[in-house]
């Protein structure tokens, strides 16, 4: 058949062309040339509000390292793709970074769903990984091949709950949270901690991602006899919601918020609406006199031009990863991660990084601030600090598959934990 023959030839041509046009990874993740840091993060869509500052900070850190001579005598190159905060894009980006660009380290995504989809790619691809948006399960699922570059929500949120119960003497707190994994997680952590302390959660309300109208939710909360409310709002919803809060909630209700209000973009938009809010945040803030913190804040201001809470997580991730590579003397996945596992009191702007082999966390300090400055973040006041060294999760990290049988025992002994 004439047309059949032509179709066959055309398809054959397509297959051939595809293989030729696809830039095949020839050199592979080699031992010379620049060290490639792969980053998949949200650069468009709602989550871009966090993804873009994150990438800016990463690039600034790479520049800094290169000015100081790089790592192992090699330059650091950052390759970043947009994952739009959604899992399939994250998968696409991660596969491209690992399989095509052959990166040496991978930050697999910005939102939890994205990271969880992309993480197996890094694990199978034998690439050391780091991230910040991880929930507990993901760190455990990481099997030691990934570390978190920030204190987890399990440390930050309980600090706020503790502050609410012990300092503000709140006993009935309602919750309004965003209807995503992040919001659900935050609600669970806050509820668990607050109830453990002896308080109660009379009402939980949610709003869908993208919505700006929380009038019904607030009216529901107002009817529930609360003395405080924990708001877990994100991005564009914060300012309109705070405005509605002023309308629908009685003035004696104490307002607690997540760390999303520690962001210049949000503060510029919300202005004085945030005043009076208590919120948790990780320790890299202007009000922290720690010289390590001040040094990095100045550095970011100089290189990137603005301040955002996310910067801290980029800085820590890059610092730890660079140190681990330097100590390992190679970019090989297991060697690098082993160095991460052995870190004790490594100085970072979020506190000394000490890897806890039981839960895989390295940073366990939190701070609670009172917003006072309107659009000026620096005027917010520290009202509470918390540090913990307790084991955070019910499940422990299982090192067996990647690091072998006796590794866990050896690591526990090294850190002096059981």
């Amino acid at each position, binding site marked *: 058949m004439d047309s059949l023959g032509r179709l066959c030839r055309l398809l054959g041509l397509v*297959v051939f062309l595809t293989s030729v046009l696809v830039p095949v990874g020839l050199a592979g993740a080699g031992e010379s040339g620049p060290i490639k840091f792969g980053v998949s993060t949200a650069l468009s869509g709602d989550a871009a509000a966090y993804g873009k500052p994150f990438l800016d900070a990463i690039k600034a850190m790479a520049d800094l390292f290169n000015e100081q001579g790089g790592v192992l005598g090699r330059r650091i190159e950052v390759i970043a793709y947009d994952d739009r905060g959604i899992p399939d894009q994250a998968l*696409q980006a991660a596969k491209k970074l690992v399989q095509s660009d052959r990166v040496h380290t991978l930050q697999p995504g910005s939102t939890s769903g994205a990271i969880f989809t992309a993480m*197996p790619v890094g694990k199978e691809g034998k690439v050391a990984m780091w991230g910040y948006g991880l929930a507990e399960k993901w760190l455990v699922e990481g099997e030691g091949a990934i570390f978190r570059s920030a204190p987890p929500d399990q440390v930050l949120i309980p600090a706020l709950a503790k502050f609410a119960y012990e300092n503000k003497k709140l006993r009935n707190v309602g919750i309004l949270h965003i209807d995503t*994994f992040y919001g659900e997680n935050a609600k669970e952590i806050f509820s668990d901690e607050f109830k453990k302390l002896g308080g109660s959660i009379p009402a939980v309300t949610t709003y869908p991602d993208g919505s700006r109208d929380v009038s019904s939710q607030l009216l529901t909360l107002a009817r529930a006899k609360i003395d405080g409310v924990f708001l877990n709002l994100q991005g564009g919803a914060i300012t309109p919601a705070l405005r509605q809060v002023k309308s629908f909630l009685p003035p004696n209700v104490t307002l607690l918020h997540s760390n999303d209000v520690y962001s210049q973009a949000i503060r510029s938009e919300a202005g004085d609406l945030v005043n009076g809010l208590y919120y948790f945040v990780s320790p890299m803030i202007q009000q922290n006199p720690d010289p390590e913190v001040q040094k990095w804040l100045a550095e970011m201001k100089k290189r990137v031009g603005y301040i955002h809470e996310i910067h801290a997580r980029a800085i820590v991730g890059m610092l730890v990863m660079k140190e681990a590579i330097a100590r390992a003397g190679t970019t090989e996945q297991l060697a690098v991660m082993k160095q991460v596992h052995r870190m004790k009191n490594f100085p970072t702007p979020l506190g000394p990084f000490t890897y806890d082999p039981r839960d895989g966390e390295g940073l366990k300090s939190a701070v609670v601030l009172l917003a006072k400055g309107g659009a000026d973040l620096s005027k917010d006041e520290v009202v509470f600090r918390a540090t913990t060294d307790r084991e955070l999760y019910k499940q422990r990290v299982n090192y067996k598959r990647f690091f072998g049988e006796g590794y866990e025992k050896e690591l526990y002994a090294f850190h002096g934990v059981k």
Partner: protein
Amino acid sequence: MARVPRFILGPVTILLFAVPVLFRGQEYLLRLANEVFLNVVIILGFVVILGLTKQFSLGQVAFYGIGAYTVALLTASAGWNFFLALPVAGLAAGSMAVVVGIPCVRFEGPWFALVTFAFAEIARILMIRLKEVTGGAQGFYNIPRPSLAGLQLTAEFHYFYLFLVVAMLVFGITVYVRRSPLGRLWLALGEVPHVVAAMGTNVALQRILAFFAGSVFAGLAGGLFAGYTTFISPDSFTINHTIYFLTILVVGGLESIAGSILSVVVFTLLSNYLLAFYPWDLVLQGLIIILFMNFLPRGLGSLMPTLWGFANRQPAPADDTA
């Protein structure tokens, strides 16, 4: 009786099956191919529903999701084998399509679009709300990788063969149907429904059948997706995905099977290579739709008379039975 496309037994098939051997070790290429095959399955569903019977369904992504969650539930929670779960996933999606289709088939163009869109959104909200079943916004993780007789699929090329087989199956069915009297009936149904109704055909029944078929394809694709990524969440099933496939369909040509497949290849490669050019690639997507609508409304398929002719070729009239 329509003939099964012979090339399925021919040289191209051999070539395709040989790809992982020829390109051994080039994981990224295989991964791109996997994405192409998955998208082909989805787009053929679109061709059947939107292209042939012209039912403007904006809800296909929901069936894709139903397929994915079905496989997830059956393999992770109930311990089924993936290869048993996959066809069930397809049927689950198809059944849901029938349930939605029966009351909705009476609606014309934009209204059908709206109800199917409403259905898709409701489905997505349910995916989030039914936490105990679907994992909610946190997603459904630890979906076991497909395994058959002790062999588990882990590498890209394992999946390559699975996806290739399914894609070829779906392609074969689609071409078979398209070249059969049923296919011609559906095409006529899309173009001149009144005429077809006047000839005594049960229009509603045929529409539901087509809707069913296309949605089964979507369900199968969803099931494959679940087994491939081992993690699914409602974020993967939004209107943006629908828009992406609409773009591909429009560029390929609504009724053109060959055009749609070519379009899938082009878009899959582009979307992976344009990954570095956020969000211009989305602007481009929108622009492409506008340009094609204005200058090439019948899509690429109309530029390839040969391919168009091949896939849409009808057997000689003598074979006809009304």
